[in-house]
């Protein structure tokens, strides 16, 4: 079934079978909003792979998936889209193939290139929400600046070891410069020491995907002006006030 068919059913107050378990949470109106939404996912690795899977199942109508990288063996421990079959394949291309298997309502646009200053405006313009699933602090800061400039909300997450953080950056709120000192010289965080185990990106990505759903449907409260920090080693879950 194509997205137009699902939208036509929803317009008549009927619920497409595949979205029945969504409706109690987001309602028919929420499902319609998701199907009409356009989301850019920047990075299709540990965070991105899970976010893409969840948003495809939830029924987000259009996803632009941006990643110039290809899968390698070190991705297999945590990246949902990395399988023995997809080794060496471009991450964005693998992601769009996966979405096509999961939900044919969802249109995808694979961009097999790294996000940078030159392609930022072209790739992000017209999106309703941008997802930060990068692994470079330098490019996260660039993505945040561009999202705020284009007045598009940004769902951010990052992980390392047992630790992760999730937050939503609004166009007028505090940006990632409150979270990362750009003067530190390093492009990476403590993940260079702690690594990236299997469950941490999935946990952060699930909350990040939920932020996207809340932004698109207008339901609930996003983690904006705040940062959810978790450390599952010590069962710490804290909301940090960024203003």
């Amino acid at each position, binding site marked *: 079934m194509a997205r137009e068919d699902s939208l036509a059913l929803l317009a008549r107050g009927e619920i497409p079978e595949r979205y029945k378990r969504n409706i109690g949470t987001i309602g028919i109106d929420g499902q319609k909003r998701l199907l009409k939404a356009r989301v850019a996912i920047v990075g299709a690795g540990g965070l991105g792979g899970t976010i893409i899977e969840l948003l495809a199942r939830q029924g987000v109508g259009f996803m632009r998936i941006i990643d110039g990288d290809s899968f390698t063996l070190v991705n297999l421990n945590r990246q949902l889209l990395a399988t023995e079959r997809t080794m060496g394949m471009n991450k964005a291309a693998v992601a769009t193939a996966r979405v096509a298997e999961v939900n044919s309502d969802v249109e995808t646009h694979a961009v097999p290139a790294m996000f940078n200053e030159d392609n930022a405006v072209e790739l992000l313009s017209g999106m309703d929400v941008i997802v930060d699933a990068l*692994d470079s602090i330098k490019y996260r800061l660039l993505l945040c600046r561009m999202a705020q400039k284009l007045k598009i909300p940004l769902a951010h997450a990052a992980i390392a070891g047992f630790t*992760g953080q999730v937050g939503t950056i609004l166009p007028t709120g505090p940006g990632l410069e409150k979270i990362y000192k750009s003067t530190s010289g*390093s492009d990476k965080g403590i*993940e260079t020491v*702690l690594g990236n185990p299997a469950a941490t990106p999935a946990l952060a990505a699930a909350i990040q995907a939920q932020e996207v759903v809340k932004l698109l449907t207008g339901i609930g409260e996003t983690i904006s002006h705040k940062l959810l920090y978790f450390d599952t080693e010590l069962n710490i879950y804290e909301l940090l006030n960024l203003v």
Partner: protein
Amino acid sequence: MRIEVRLYATLRQHALSAAEGVLAVDVPEGSKAADVIAKVGVNADEVHILMVNGVSSPLNQVLAEGDRLGLFPAVGGG
């Protein structure tokens, strides 16, 4: 005055005596967050988020008796 310092993730290595990364640090009146960070032995360059009583604050924030200082390193993996 006494400041409660909470160290997160890799910064906990500077609090070997307190497994959960919570320390009580005595510093002179008028001390700044940066002074406490130096006393604990943390490299200020490693601190990306600095919270005082739950509010994001700068390194030169002047502290008061009983303040809670939270120090977070950069988490950047994806």
